[in-house]
């Protein structure tokens, strides 16, 4: 029992976002935006002026908050903090890498697929990169 990670369940958990402007605006239209009493939002809009440190801080904050169940992160943003995303291994919140307008999804960079791909043969991994 001591070795098992503590599992969180929640009835009403948030969806956090670290993505470009259009993606964040779209999901805010769908009603996921949350601003708490400390005026902290559950999203970070990444643009040309956003630094890697800001992205790292936002990722660390969202992944450690108890009230967040899913963190959506654009894959090109995840690539900027790849070491942090790949080293994340908690079940909750779930980190989902999504494509962005200018950067289509690349399964070779997905952290979840990277974790499971060593079960596949080296040939199939190489052929998938063509």
């Amino acid at each position, binding site marked *: 029992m001591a070795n*098992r990670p503590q*599992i*969180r*369940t*929640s*009835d*009403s*958990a*948030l*969806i956090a976002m670290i993505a470009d*402007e*259009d*993606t*964040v*605006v*779209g*999901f*805010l*239209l*769908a*009603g*996921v*935006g*949350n*601003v*708490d*009493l400390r*005026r902290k*939002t*559950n999203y970070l*809009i990444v643009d040309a002026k956003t630094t890697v440190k800001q992205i790292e801080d936002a990722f660390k904050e969202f992944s450690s908050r108890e009230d967040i*169940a*899913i963190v*959506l992160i654009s894959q090109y943003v995840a690539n900027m903090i790849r070491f942090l995303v790949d080293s994340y291994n908690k*079940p*909750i919140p*779930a980190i*989902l890498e*999504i*494509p962005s*307008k200018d950067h*289509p*999804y690349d*399964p*070779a960079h*997905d952290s*979840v*697929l990277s*974790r*499971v791909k060593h*079960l*596949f*043969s080296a040939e*199939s991994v190489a*052929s*998938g*990169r*063509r």
Partner: protein
Amino acid sequence: MLFDICFMPISSQNSVYCTMFSLMEKQEDPEPSTVENGSEKQEEEKQVKEETLLHFLDSTDSYLTLIDSISSTLRQGWLELASARHDMGASRVNTALLDLKVHSASTSVQVSQQDADSMFAQHRFLLRKWASSDDGESFSAEEKSRENKLPTESDSQLRHRNSSHYSEKTSERNGSPLTLDDQVQKQRSKSLSVFGVLVSPRLRAAQISFETALEILVEIANMRSTMLATFDQVHEELEGTQR
């Protein structure tokens, strides 16, 4: 019994893998009853291992299919958003207008755990769309309201507060003529009102697209959880056989 697993890419662009594995069984010679019981037990264990592996491969395939689906849904949403920006003007559809007053999310996720006693517990995510902040009632009825067009075995369900049974109860309690559908529309309009009173129909279409994208993302989260849990099982079994 041997496993032979190979993966072939269907297309170079999306790198979707199709899996095929073949089983080659040995013919078993007739044996005494005590040895038969032992071999039956071994057969059962192997069957369980095969099922776990199959489950893992299925979940991986479903995960990649869902990723393709989210890509196309998001593309549609971005296109509609760009069209709305073209109609309304860039100054009316941008992040400067976002509401930074204290407010809670209308759309949230319910997290539960399956197989809590197992070493390989999975999490289940359930999307709760447009939950009214005024309504403190909790609805226990769940309906599979979304047609599952994707070849997944996900059991994720969408909780819509649009059951007519509950709408009658709500209107009886509150004395309000609003049905649950009306409440959902009200929440949607509230979300759109950030960008003005009169908004382009393309912005409404973008809203629907991103709502669909959220549903797919919750399915992806469930599939991810299944994939990682079954991967851990398969990995442990492989390590056990190698020792």
